[in-house]
């Protein structure tokens, strides 16, 4: 009886260990498939980590001006945290370090019923943010290309 309990505990422990090994340090988004042609200078083109952060702040500024999408982001609350997570995500998809600590894109958007129109509205905000931050159009397209495959999990409606 006692022995079987121990073996059960052991088994559970081993399972947990295996599961932990299978997961990255953060259980969130991992890199998308390599996006064709994103240059190694992509993060630098945005002005490094600091530049990416500034861009994300501009992105949220334009998102909050757009009635088609601002309510979705407001409902989430804690915009500062959203900006921090997005900065990590954008750096990662541009080929920078993978420090993303948020939920996966599919988990984060599953229940929101995001439409293609709303996704495109964020893309428009992204271009506006690039213009505002004097990031070159071609560099901006690298980021759009890197985020584009997320349409498949973000747009659910």
């Amino acid at each position, binding site marked *: 009886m006692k022995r079987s309990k121990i073996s059960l505990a052991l088994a559970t422990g081993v399972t947990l260990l295996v599961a932990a090994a299978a997961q990255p340090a953060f259980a969130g988004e991992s890199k998308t498939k*390599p996006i*064709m042609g994103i240059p190694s200078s992509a993060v630098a083109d945005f002005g490094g980590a600091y530049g990416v952060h500034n861009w994300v702040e501009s992105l949220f500024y334009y998102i909050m001006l757009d009635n088609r999408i601002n309510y979705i982001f407001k409902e989430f609350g804690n915009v500062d945290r959203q900006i921090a997570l997005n900065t990590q995500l954008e750096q990662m998809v541009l080929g920078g370090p993978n420090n993303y600590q948020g939920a996966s894109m599919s988990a984060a958007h599953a229940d929101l019923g995001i439409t*293609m129109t709303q996704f*495109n509205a964020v893309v*428009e905000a992204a271009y506006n943010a690039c213009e505002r931050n004097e990031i070159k*159009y071609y560099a901006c*397209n690298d980021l*759009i290309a890197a985020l584009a495959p997320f349409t498949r999990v973000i747009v659910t409606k």
Partner: protein
Amino acid sequence: MKRLHKSGLRTLQCAAILAAGLVSSSAWAGIYNDGKVLLTGGVFTVDGAGGGGAVPWATISGYETRDGINGSAGFTYVNLPALQVSFYGVNVGLFDRVELSYVDSRLSLNLPNLQTVALVADAAGLDVGTDAWNSTLGMQTYGVKVRLFGDAVYTSDSWIPQVAVGGLYKDNRNVALIHTLGADKTKDYEIYVAATKVLFPISTLVNVTARYTSANEDGLTGFGYCNGGSQTDCHNKRKVRAEVSIAHLVAKNTAIGGEWQQHGSNLDGRSVNVAGLDLSGLTGLLGSAGLGGLSGALTQKKEGDWYDLFMAYAPNKHISFVVAYLMFGNIAVAPAQNGFYFATHLTF
């Protein structure tokens, strides 16, 4: 024929009113959509389909996403040394899946040699569908396009393009002039398959289209050909022809690029037919009119492929402008037709 033309105009008006109704009526408010990103629906081709200037793309015209519908109207003016063409049209995009289009075009010939034929034929009492001061080829084009699969913009992690299939039905009004130019049919259909992809790393849209057609000059001078200056030995062999559009985005609202459209050789080296007479009869007439040596001028040159270089500018989602330089090669009896193209595309 005039009545047909009027009904065409009426169709245009109805479509415009319908489109205007869609925008204003609150009942449609839920289904109206302009959610596409700027310029990603393409502009208005001379065939009415969404695409570049001459080449239809796999994109569905208008700014709607799969969430709704959108419509547009287009006007294009082409100015070449020997002819001018105006295109007026409307189209509607449904749920980024289906596109319906209509275009009315008017090609005005400005050819001294054809006008001479007209004068002589007039003197001889023959109807060749042209008069000395007004030789207009009118055509109506009805189109439908269906997106089969793919997303031209957002599948940046694969090579799969957006692919659509489309059909066009073209109906020329000036039957006599089309036959004078030696074509077999004045109305015919075309089928095309288009593949479009935006390559973000080079900010460039690439489109390849294969069109199954027998058109002469996009159908503006009819379809197929007839041998021997009569309408008895006629052929309308459709073939697959290639078309390519490349548009480089220099900014989110500005594209520059070029197009190539392969053309056939149906009318190459054929004489202008005058009401079933072969040219020997006409040269007799011309000779007696003191215009011998004109027969060479009435032999149609090798039809050139269409090339163009364009710049498209969309200041907002309601209007865009395209200017282009066209290199159309020889058209009918007119050699080396290079000129300009101006188009505007109004999106609701």
